[in-house]
C-alpha cells in the first residue's frame, strides 16, 4: 500500500465525510459548516436546478436516536412557517443510512460576525425585534429553541433575520400531533419515543446564553422563559460595542436575564414589546422612572417641538424688548 501523505489523509477524511448523494436527486457542491449533529453542505437539486443547504448526521447511529433527533428537528422547523425561520424542503436517508434534510440556502452572515455592520442602537434593536418575532412565533406553536445565540442567527443582506439550528428544540406539547407523523419520502428508522425530550440532568445549550435552570440540567423547569433569558443575552451582545447603553435598555436585558425565571418577562412577546416601547420613546416596563427621569425622557422625545417653542419664545421676548425701547 502506498504511504499516505498528510495531504492524502486530509483528502480521504473529506471524501469519507462528504455525503454520498446517489439516488437522492441532489449533487454535492461544497461544505458550508459543521454543527452539533453533523455537517451542512451546499447541494443542488438537480431537477429544479436550485441550490439548497443539506444538513446530515456525521455518522449513522445504531440506536436510531440521533436519526430521530435530526428528523424531529426537520419536522419541527417544517411546522414553523415564518419569514424568520429557515424553511425545510425535504428529508431523507443517504445510502449509508444517515438521515438528512434540506432547507433554504441562507445568504447572509451569522449575527456574531454581522453585529458591527448593523449600525447604531436603533438598527440593532430592530434586528433584535425580528429575532423576537420569530421566537415568539415558535413559542406560539409550542416550540422552545433552547439554543438561541448569535451564532444561530443569520442576518441577510437586506436586513432579513433567520433563526437557525433548531437541533435542541423542545416541544411543549406532550405529543407530536398525529397529522404531523406522516412518514417522510424515504423514511429512516424513527422511534419518536427515543428522543422527544432530553433526559433530566442532561445539559444541552451554550454557556453564556443558557438560562440557569437549563445549565443545571433541570429540564422540567426549562420553559418559555429559558428562551427569554437567551434573548436577553443576545440583546446584551447586540448592545455591546455600541457606545454607552441607556439604563432602560440595560434594565430590559437585566430583566430578561433574571436568575429567577419568574422575575423575567413572561413571554418573548413582552420582551419585544418593551424594546418597541423604548424605540418609540415610551416608558419601558423593566425600568420604573422617577418624575424627573420621566420629564427628561419626555424632553428627549419632544426635543424638536421644544426647541421650536423655545426659539419662538426667545424671538418674541427679543421683539418685545426691542419695541419697549
Amino acid at each position, binding site marked *: *500500500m*502506498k*504511504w*499516505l*501523505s*498528510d*495531504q*492524502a*489523509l*486530509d*483528502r*480521504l*477524511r473529506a*471524501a*469519507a*465525510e*462528504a455525503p*454520498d448523494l*446517489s*439516488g437522492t436527486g441532489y449533487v454535492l457542491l461544497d461544505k458550508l459548516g*459543521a*454543527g*452539533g*449533529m*453533523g*455537517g451542512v453542505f451546499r447541494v443542488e437539486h438537480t431537477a429544479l436546478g436550485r441550490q439548497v443547504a443539506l444538513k446530515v*448526521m*456525521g*455518522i*449513522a*447511529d*445504531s*440506536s436510531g436516536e*440521533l*436519526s430521530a433527533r435530526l428528523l424531529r428537528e426537520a419536522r419541527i422547523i417544517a411546522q414553523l412557517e415564518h419569514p424568520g425561520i429557515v424553511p425545510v424542503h425535504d428529508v431523507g*436517508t*443517504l*445510502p*449509508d*443510512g*444517515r438521515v438528512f434534510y434540506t432547507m433554504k440556502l441562507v445568504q447572509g452572515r451569522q449575527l456574531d460576525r454581522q453585529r458591527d455592520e448593523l449600525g447604531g442602537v436603533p438598527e440593532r434593536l430592530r434586528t433584535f425585534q425580528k429575532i423576537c418575532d420569530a421566537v415568539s412565533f415558535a413559542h406560539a406553536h409550542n416550540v422552545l429553541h433552547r439554543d438561541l445565540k448569535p451564532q444561530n442567527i443569520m442576518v441577510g443582506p437586506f436586513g432579513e433575520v433567520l433563526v437557525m439550528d433548531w437541533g435542541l428544540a423542545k416541544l411543549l406539547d406532550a405529543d407530536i400531533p398525529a397529522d404531523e407523523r406522516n412518514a417522510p419520502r*424515504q423514511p*429512516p*428508522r424513527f422511534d419518536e419515543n427515543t428522543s422527544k425530550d432530553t433526559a433530566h440532568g442532561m445539559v444541552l445549550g451554550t454557556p453564556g446564553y443558557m438560562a440557569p435552570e437549563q445549565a443545571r440540567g433541570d429540564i422540567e423547569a426549562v420553559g418559555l422563559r429559558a428562551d427569554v433569558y437567551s434573548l436577553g443575552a443576545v440583546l446584551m451582545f447586540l448592545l455591546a460595542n455600541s457606545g454607552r447603553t441607556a439604563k432602560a435598555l440595560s434594565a430590559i436585558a437585566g430583566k430578561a436575564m433574571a436568575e429567577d425565571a419568574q422575575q423575567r418577562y413572561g413571554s418573548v412577546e413582552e420582551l419585544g414589546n418593551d424594546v418597541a416601547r423604548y424605540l418609540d420613546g415610551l416608558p419601558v416596563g423593566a425600568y420604573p422612572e422617577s418624575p424627573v427621569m420621566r420629564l427628561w425622557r419626555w424632553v428627549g422625545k419632544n426635543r424638536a417641538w421644544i426647541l421650536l417653542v423655545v426659539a419662538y419664545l426667545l424671538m418674541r421676548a427679543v421683539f418685545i424688548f426691542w419695541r419697549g425701547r
Partner: protein
Amino acid sequence: MGRTGLQSKGSTRNHSRDFSTSGSMESRRALSIAAGRRTLPFASMEDDVNLRGQGSFPETRWSLIAAVRGAEPEARQRALEILVAAYWKPVYKYIRLRWDKDNEQAQDLTQEFFVRLLEKDFLARYEPQRARLRTFLRVCVDHLVANEDKAARRLKRGGEAQFLPLDFESAEGELQQIEIPSPGSMEEFFEREWVRSVFSLSLERLRQECEQRGKLVHFRLLEFYDIDEGGKELTYEQVARQFGLKPCDVTNYLAFARREFRRIVLDQMREMTGSEEEFRREAHALLGIAAP
C-alpha cells in the same frame, strides 16, 4: 519544521519483512502475527453489504476490548491482531521521535511493548470511560520507555523474548517522509499516525474487496483522486479516457469507492471500540468532524 533526516542505526532485523503492507498476500501476512497466521476478521465479500443503505448500519460484531479481556482464546487472538496492526507503527514512530531513540532501540521497545500486550492482561487496567484507548496505550508506551533499563534487561535474557513480525523498515522509511513534530505536539503526532495507520489498513482492505468483486478500477479511481490527487487538473472526460470508462462512470465509481472506504473505516472503528459512545467519539476523531 523540516524533514526528519533520521538516520538508521544498525541493520533492520530479518523478521521485519513479514509485516509488509503491500500486495494482496503480503497484506494478509501483514495483518497477521506470528503466532496466529490468520487474516483479520474483516468483513468478507459474502457479507451483506447493503449499498443502498436504507437505514442499514454495520452491526457491532464484537468489541475489541471485550474480546481481549475475554476468556475465548480465538477472539482474544483476533482482537490482539487488530490492535497490533493498527497501533504498531504509531507506537514505533512515537518512540523514535518522542523519546529520541535510534531505530534499533525503538524496535526493541516496540517489540517489548506489544509482547507485553500479548502476554499479560495489559488491557485489564484500561477503563474506556476514563480515556481513549490510544491515549491509554500512549501513556503505557511512555511508562515502558521511562523504565527502559528494565525492558532492556528482559530483552537481553533472549530466551524469554518473543518477536512479532513487524516491518520496521517500512515504518522507518515513512519516518523519513514526515516532518518532525515539535516536542509539544507529540500527542497530536501519535493521533495523526494512528489515523494514517487506520486509513492505510482500510485502503488495503478496500483494495482487496474491490479486487475480489471485479471492481479494482473503482479503487484505482479513489487512489487517483484522493491519494495521488491526480484528478485535480483533469476533467471527468479526460479521466474517463485514461481509465477506459464512460464519463458518467467516473463519478459513480468514485462515489462507490468513497462510500465503501467510509464503511470500512467505520467498521474498523466498531471493532476497536467497546461502546456506541466510544465508537462515535473515535469515529468523529478519525474523520475529523465535530462530535455530537
